[in-house]
């Protein structure tokens, strides 16, 4: 049996190289994400930093850990999905070989053993190769995290043996489970099928495929519905779940769409013998088409789904910022300069918010960032967010208000917090707090009058300006500029800038999360195309002796592959769309407005890129497969 495995291996190397690669890269990604994730758990703080800078570095580590957690989770999902679909496909491709084994006296058990020992071999080889690849992937991920500013320069994660072992076990385990169901199916192949040239038109939509596909689809729909009533964190997780479950559902059900697409190709592309052949091939090779479309569906669904989710959240945070203020202008300056603003003609209220550098200690945890000094009355007039507890009226004297960022800390009114401001120790009583918002928001609001002047005079200050009713905000803005303020923005501009800022961060996060994972999925697409193409040598040869020249065969293959790629992209977009419906429902619930961000540019790039990659790969594969003289392939029986 082992000899048989080994020699099959030699014979069908494209099939197995593809399988090994899918394991190796999957293992590498999982290993790398786990190593980096583990390293972010122990922040490396460079020496000689101020406490705020240290705090920032520490926060960066927390952010990096979140991003890496997502990356590790996605890498595992992709590894499971891609390895099992690749391995399942390799079994399907060898149907005739396996039937031949049965014909020569192989029992069902032996067939299963053969396939499982093969996948064990491939899994082990792939996992071993995955270890050095993982070190490379780890380097890339670290570089990306440092590049986006989450981790300090000079950060490095050291190689962890346990991560390699865990990733390896996952690799081998996934390879075995991926083949297991396929081997059960393969064991049911009847020996007679070896005698059929074309093989039995195997039913693609088996009962189990239907069941699995429909249940994954139902889960997806359930998550979309659930997200409508969820909070935003829940909806974000749901969006991730929708992308993953939806992708699995779509790839399981994709064979249903293939005939429809074949029909559509006939409508879109002018009729001709070649297109006719491509359409017939599409309909005939449903299993092959589905296998090629699967990784593409996952790639498109995850990439667009996540980009859409993050983008929608960023757009929503901009919208939220706009709605949070009842004002027309936002001016940036120092605290001292801002004091001149209320006196400018046309300014009704100028709520100055000084980002002060003081320390507030909550249960032995010190907070340095997001502490804002305000005048409660001005703040209340210019801001719409209602406190969750207490009232802003009480925010005078030795008091403090908790901001949205501290909401989850559950600091109760009446609690007394120790504050250190400009060398002065204060005891401030909590008099209320704000609810959580989309944006992290401020940590604490402190009455400006309570703090020493030197604490807020030089602090970076954002002043929210309400103009006198009847005055043109533009005119007032010009007047403020003339008074020596360089940065005056209208509220929509200010909100848009914040959304853009958030979006920039999202793009970086998406790059880390989906960058390598996306390349992995793309590799799986190429893999499936190559496997499908090389297995068709004889079919291509038959087409050539029927009268097609080599170029025509290649063109037919390209038309067919393009149609399959379009199926993948469209179904993937469908899944991403479901994710967007989920997140937009949650946003609607949170803010009462529907905000959806569709990543059109990314969509165009992904669609054109993946169709191009699939078309080019299938063209090259077909060209190579048609290299030997056709007659030799048609006449030699293997």
């Amino acid at each position, binding site marked *: *049996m082992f000899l048989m495995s080994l020699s099959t291996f030699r014979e069908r190397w494209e099939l197995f190289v593809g399988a090994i690669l899918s394991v190796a890269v999957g293992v590498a990604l999982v290993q790398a994400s786990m190593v980096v994730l583990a390293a972010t758990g122990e922040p490396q703080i460079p020496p000689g930093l101020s406490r705020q800078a240290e705090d920032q570095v520490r926060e960066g580590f927390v952010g990096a850990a979140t991003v890496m957690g997502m990356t590790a989770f996605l890498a595992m999902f992709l590894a499971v999905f891609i390895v099992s679909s690749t391995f399942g496909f390799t079994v399907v491709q060898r149907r005739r070989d396996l039937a031949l084994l049965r*014909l020569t*006296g192989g029992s*069902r058990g032996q067939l299963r053993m053969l396939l499982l020992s093969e996948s064990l071999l491939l899994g082990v080889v792939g996992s071993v190769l995955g270890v050095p690849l993982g070190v490379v992937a780890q380097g890339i991920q670290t570089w990306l995290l440092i590049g986006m500013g989450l981790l300090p320069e000079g950060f490095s994660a050291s190689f962890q043996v346990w991560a390699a072992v865990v990733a390896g076990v996952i690799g081998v385990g996934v390879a075995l489970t991926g083949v297991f169901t396929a081997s059960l199916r393969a064991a049911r192949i*009847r*020996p007679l099928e*070896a005698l059929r*040239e074309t093989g039995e038109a195997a039913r693609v939509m088996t009962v189990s495929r239907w069941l699995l596909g429909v249940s994954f689809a139902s889960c997806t729909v359930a998550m979309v519905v659930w997200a409508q009533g969820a909070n935003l964190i829940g909806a974000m997780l749901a969006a991730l779940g929708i992308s993953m479950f939806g992708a699995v559902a779509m790839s399981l059900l994709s064979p249903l769409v293939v005939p429809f697409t074949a029909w559509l190709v006939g409508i879109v592309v002018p009729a001709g013998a070649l297109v006719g052949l491509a359409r017939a091939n599409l309909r005939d090779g449903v299993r092959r088409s589905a296998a090629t479309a699967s990784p593409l569906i996952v790639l498109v669904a995850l990439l667009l789904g996540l980009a859409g989710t993050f983008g929608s959240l960023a757009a929503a945070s901009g919208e939220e910022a706009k709605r949070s203020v009842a004002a027309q202008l936002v001016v940036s300056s120092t605290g001292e300069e801002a004091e001149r603003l209320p006196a400018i003609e046309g300014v009704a209220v100028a709520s100055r918010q000084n980002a002060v550098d003081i320390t507030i200690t909550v249960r032995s945890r010190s907070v340095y960032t997001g502490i804002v000094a305000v005048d409660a009355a001005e703040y209340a007039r210019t801001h719409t967010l209602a406190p969750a507890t207490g009232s802003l009226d009480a925010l005078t004297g030795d008091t403090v208000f908790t901001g949205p960022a501290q909401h989850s800390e559950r600091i109760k009114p009446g609690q007394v917090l120790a504050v250190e401001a400009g060398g002065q120790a204060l005891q401030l009583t909590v008099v209320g707090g704000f609810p959580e918002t989309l944006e992290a928001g401020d940590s604490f609001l402190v009455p400006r009058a309570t703090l020493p002047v030197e604490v807020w005079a030089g602090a970076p200050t954002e002043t929210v300006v309400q103009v006198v009713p009847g005055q043109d905000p533009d005119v007032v803005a010009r007047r403020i500029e003339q008074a020596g303020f360089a940065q005056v923005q209208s509220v929509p501009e200010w909100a848009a800038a914040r959304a853009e800022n958030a979006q920039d961060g999202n793009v970086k996060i998406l790059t880390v999360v989906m960058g390598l994972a996306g390349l992995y999925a793309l590799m799986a697409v190429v893999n499936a195309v190559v496997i499908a193409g090389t297995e068709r040598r004889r079919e291509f040869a038959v087409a050539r002796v029927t009268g097609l020249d080599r170029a025509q065969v290649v063109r037919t293959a390209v038309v067919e592959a393009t149609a399959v790629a379009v199926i993948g992209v469209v179904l993937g977009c469908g899944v991403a769309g479901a994710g967007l419906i989920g997140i937009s429902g949650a946003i609607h619930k949170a803010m009462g407005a529907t905000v959806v961000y569709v990543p059109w540019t990314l969509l165009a790039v992904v669609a054109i890129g993946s169709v191009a990659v699939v078309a080019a790969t299938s063209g090259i594969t077909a060209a190579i497969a048609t290299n030997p003289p056709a007659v030799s392939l048609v006449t030699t*029986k293997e």
Partner: protein
Amino acid sequence: MSWHQPLTADPRQAVPAAGRSAVELHQVTRFHGPRATGVAALDGVSLSCPAGSWTAVMGPSGSGKSTLLHCAAGLDRVTSGRVFLAGRDITAAPERVLTEMRRRTIGFVFQSFNLISSLTAEQNVAFPAKLAGTRVSKSEVRQVLAGVGLADRAGHRPRELSGGQQQRVAIARAMISRPAVLFADEPTGALDSHSAKAVLDLLRTMVRSAGQTIVMVTHDPAVAAGADAVVFLSDGRIVDRMEQPSTRGVAERLARLEG
């Protein structure tokens, strides 16, 4: 190339005594598709092939030749009727029993040689025995290959062999287990006349000197004439039987059937 000594009847394999049937079909019907609307590929076929005899099955395309062979060999299930193979009723035999029989009781040779492309000639021949878990010595394999005239091709892969050579490897593979019955489906169909003659000579020697039972489907009267008996199929029914056939007699009978 001749059929050498090693392949005489083997005491290990219970070859049915001459005169008893190695293959028997009783009123076999095989429908393709649902019974009400389906097509009967076989329609009440009864056939008996005595042990040690060579039976050829002939008929126009679509007459049910291959279905007959597949049903007789347990590769296909019959819709009704009964099938006996080497004295055993295999009509409703479970897959496990059929697998076991493929290993020890029956051998197959097909028009498309169905060798495993990744294995050498030698490995192909030894493969069924390995599947069965029986040890075959290298010398035994070499002897069988020598028996089909391929002693010097043992290390070649199928694609490095000519069609005739591949078919002889397939015959050697079928014979390594000394099967009670050898089923052959157009064994010379894909061969040139020279290779075809060599393969036929080989089959004839196996029947004459080793008492091998062969059931063969062919459409070539010259090939069928080598057999002990020819049965003619038409539309799934046996319409004639000819003992000790001649090429001319078979050709004329077939021409009438097709006309």
